[in-house]
């Protein structure tokens, strides 16, 4: 099937109709100096048979891992029905429709999604999704600065995902917004509210509060939110949607709750796949809705009094406000959102709470077993959701490599992002792990953690 449906004759006829000789003529007004010379590093196209063979060969190099790696993307069980339904022809598109109101089914699904996310976050409104959790945080920072009006500085704890912080810097630094790093307690693994005193009266637009934070540790969210309110700043909550089934939602945090909540939607029915596509969610108070980026689906009545769905508050968006739009976000991760909506509908509030409770219980079990080993100790005293940090006697890179040779992804090496923590390893456990998985991890860790490995065995690379 050709990717472009126009035949050469079609193209010639269309060019003739508008009086152009070639397609390049259509770009005449772009000066030659600004045109790309083409993609010199991309090899010429190959046939379907050949590319299928190449892809099969590469797929064979994939290995099946026993994974304890989380750090922002999480392995959860996805009921088979989720993607069976999501890939139906009626849903199978990444885009919100361009003739939106002609696609009532898609709009209804997005409306249901928004309803579920407001229910999870206990806030008033959400949009139809963003690209991912990291860019959602950047959008929340921009939004908070617009809402606050007088300050362009935002407090950002070091316990926020390091990649999220990098993405925020990339997206806001050209808008004269200053991100001020807030330190954390290296014993407990979270921000200490009293340590914020030095920022009091400093004119900040918002305080970012991750829950759970990057270390899996629970932040004292009530005190942090109350402090932000006392100091005339908004609270931006960065949350894991699965954890919200058992943790108090951001809308109900201290002193009236957070103002904006966002996060990565991947844990809700989206598989781990080379980093994406995932999706971001963002929710806020009704009074800030005009500063929220992206598309919002609303429910209304048609002329005959029947319920219908429609895109609403579009005057904020770039097709109307052009460069003054709240964001350049127009499309979104519709397909991943479709899967998440079906996932949430299938598991329901009780099912999601069971997923969260099982993950939390499993994490605590594995943490206890690992820290009973010589050479492994718990890095932080703070309570966790489903991830925890251990400190090893041996270098983390060596240990992870040794575990990898046994088919185990042992977690994330924190040495680069948090050198102050020494040999620190971030471990994640979800509801997908069982007793024998813990045994396998612990048995192997016992062999590697206590000693310095001079030459770690390497994973075998299959020949191609």
């Amino acid at each position, binding site marked *: 099937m050709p990717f472009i449906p126009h035949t050469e004759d079609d193209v010639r006829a269309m060019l003739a109709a508008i009086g152009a000789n070639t397609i390049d003529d259509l770009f005449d007004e772009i000066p030659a100096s600004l045109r790309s010379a083409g993609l010199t590093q991309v090899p010429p196209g190959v046939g379907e048979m050949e590319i299928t063979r190449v892809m099969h060969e590469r797929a064979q190099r994939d290995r099946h891992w026993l994974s304890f790696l989380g750090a922002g993307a999480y392995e959860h069980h996805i009921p088979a029905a989720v993607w069976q339904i999501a890939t139906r022809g009626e849903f199978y598109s990444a885009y919100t429709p361009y003739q939106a109101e002609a696609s009532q089914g898609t709009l209804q699904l997005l409306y249901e999604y928004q309803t579920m996310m407001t229910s999870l976050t206990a806030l008033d409104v959400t949009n139809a999704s963003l690209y991912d959790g990291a860019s959602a945080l950047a959008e929340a920072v921009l939004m908070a600065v617009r809402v606050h009006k007088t300050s362009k500085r935002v407090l950002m704890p070091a316990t926020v995902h390091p990649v999220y912080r990098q993405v925020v810097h990339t997206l806001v630094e050209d808008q004269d917004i200053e991100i001020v790093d807030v330190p954390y307690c290296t014993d407990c693994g979270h921000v200490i509210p009293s340590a914020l005193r030095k920022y009091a009266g400093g004119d900040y637009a918002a305080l970012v509060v991750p829950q759970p934070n990057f270390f899996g540790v629970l932040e004292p969210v009530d005190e942090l939110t109350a402090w932000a309110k006392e100091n005339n700043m908004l609270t931006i909550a960065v949350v894991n949607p699965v954890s919200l089934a058992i943790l108090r939602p951001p809308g109900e945090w201290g002193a009236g709750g957070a103002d904006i909540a966002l996060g990565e939607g991947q844990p809700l029915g989206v598989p781990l796949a080379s980093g994406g596509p995932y999706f971001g969610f963002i929710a806020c108070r009704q009074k800030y809705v*005009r500063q929220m980026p992206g598309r919002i689906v609303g429910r209304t009545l048609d002329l005959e009094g029947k319920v219908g769905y429609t895109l609403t508050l579009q005057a904020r968006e770039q097709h109307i406000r052009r460069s003054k739009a709240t964001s350049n976000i127009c499309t979104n991760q519709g397909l991943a959102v479709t899967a998440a909506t079906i996932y949430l509908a299938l598991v329901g509030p009780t099912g999601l709470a069971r997923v969260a409770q099982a993950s939390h219980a499993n994490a605590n079990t594995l943490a206890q077993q690992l820290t009973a080993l010589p050479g492994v100790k718990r890095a932080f005293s703070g309570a966790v959701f489903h991830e925890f940090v251990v400190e090893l006697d041996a270098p983390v890179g060596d240990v992870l490599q040794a575990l990898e040779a046994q088919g185990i992804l042992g977690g994330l090496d924190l040495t680069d992002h948090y050198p102050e923590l020494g040999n620190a390893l971030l471990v994640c456990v979800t509801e997908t792990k069982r007793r024998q998985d813990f045994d396998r991890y612990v048995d192997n860790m016992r062999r590697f953690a206590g000693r310095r490995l001079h030459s770690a065995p390497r994973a075998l690379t299959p020949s191609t």
Partner: protein
Amino acid sequence: MTTPADLKYTASHEWVKQDADGTVTVGITDHAQELLGDLVFVETPAVGRKLKQGEECAVVESVKAAADVYAPVSGVVTAVNTELTDAPEKINQDSYSAWLFKLKIDTPAEVAALLDASAYQAVADADSH
């Protein structure tokens, strides 16, 4: 369309009323609200903000468009009409009583140089044709 004779105007459809205490009151004209249609939201500048003449400082959003409001003269914002937050339709009902913000002005000459009612009427008429 009404254009009260005691007000000053800008070509970008703001009206300006000179108050006795050296401040001015700013709103959008009847012609502007007619063009926009039913207003659903008004965003006003922060009190205390310093504005330069011509600077974007407020947004009026209707069911079909969002339009910027520009500072007609330079000055500091001394008050905003918070009633409009919950009742933006007041601008549709009477755009000359539904003011947006008040400014303490820097340069009285800027006010004097604004359009008078007949000059603005001409601008609006040209707009409509």
